């Protein structure tokens, strides 16, 4: 049994469901009768899940890219209904980025915060006093520790981003399907 199995089954999964549910409750308008009406399409959700699985470190960047695209469209849109949809889309990608990298007070929880909290004590960076002179051995030990920390972080991200966004995306599509009344 792995730590990630427990996390996916408990806090990590709960955070994902909570975030997707909250977004849908806030932004899913009653006018979304068909799947096509939804600001975030099924294929975008599938894309998000795939990136989280294959390139977890790039999810935040991907979300920012999508947000910018939606924002550019919003600038040139006058139709009120379409503007609302684009605003919901922007909010979605802001949420995704926040879930990856968000900091308090705006985001009381994010994957980066969870990762930093889970970092084993022996991998924590020891701050040096200003102007401290390190011997070659100390420098090498520090470098080794940094590399170990980065390896650990990459592995953590590979496991946790995939699990988190699996639950997030599935819950989003589940909520979307429940609210959709026709083709």
């Amino acid at each position, binding site marked *: 049994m792995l730590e990630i199995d427990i996390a996916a089954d408990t806090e990590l*999964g709960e955070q994902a469901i909570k975030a997707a549910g909250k977004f849908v409750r806030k932004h899913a308008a009653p006018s979304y009768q068909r799947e096509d009406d939804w600001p975030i399409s099924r294929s975008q959700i599938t894309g998000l899940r795939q990136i989280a699985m294959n390139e977890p470190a790039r999810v935040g960047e991907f979300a920012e890219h999508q947000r910018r695209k939606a924002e550019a469209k919003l600038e040139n849109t006058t139709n009120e209904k379409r503007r609302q949809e684009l605003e919901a889309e922007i909010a979605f990608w802001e949420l995704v980025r926040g879930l990856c990298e968000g900091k308090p007070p705006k985001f009381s929880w994010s994957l980066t915060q969870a990762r930093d909290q889970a970092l084993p004590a022996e991998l924590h960076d020891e701050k040096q006093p200003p102007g401290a002179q390190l011997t070659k051995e100390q420098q090498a030990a520090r470098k080794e520790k940094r590399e170990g920390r980065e390896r650990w972080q990459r592995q953590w991200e590979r496991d946790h981003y995939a699990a988190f966004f699996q639950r997030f995306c599935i819950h989003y599509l589940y909520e979307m*399907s429940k609210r959709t009344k*026709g083709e």
Partner: protein
Amino acid sequence: MSAVLTPELLQAADSFLDTNEQHEAAKQLGRRLFETFGADKEGRVSTQVRNLQQMAVSATRFADVEDFVKNQMGKEKLDKQKKPGPWRQTGDNILEQLKKLRAQANQLTSDEGQRLLLRLHLARGWVRAVVGAYLYAKAQKEMEQSHA
């Protein structure tokens, strides 16, 4: 991390699965699954029901079973008469029953490792009972047809 289920915990979980309430819930759901999914061509067990069983038996996370059901529901669209498909007709009932199993595991122990193992143990026992009821309903239907 290596949690172990004690014989006492296993017995407590099995006793829960054996309660009348659990039996009745599994029986009704199994029957409902048969009414909704029916059997595959040539009278074989519905692939969807088999997939649910397979997922519950092989999952390493309880969430994977919940996600499987939600995913199936999320993929379905309403038909032209705006009638929901089989997963959307039965999925919320399944999720409700899974939620009870989760709550039961939480009640039996506070160790997160043991809770995960208990959830999986409960899910396997639960799916056995549900598929058993499905098969019973299927057999009854077949007997009715052969006597008609």
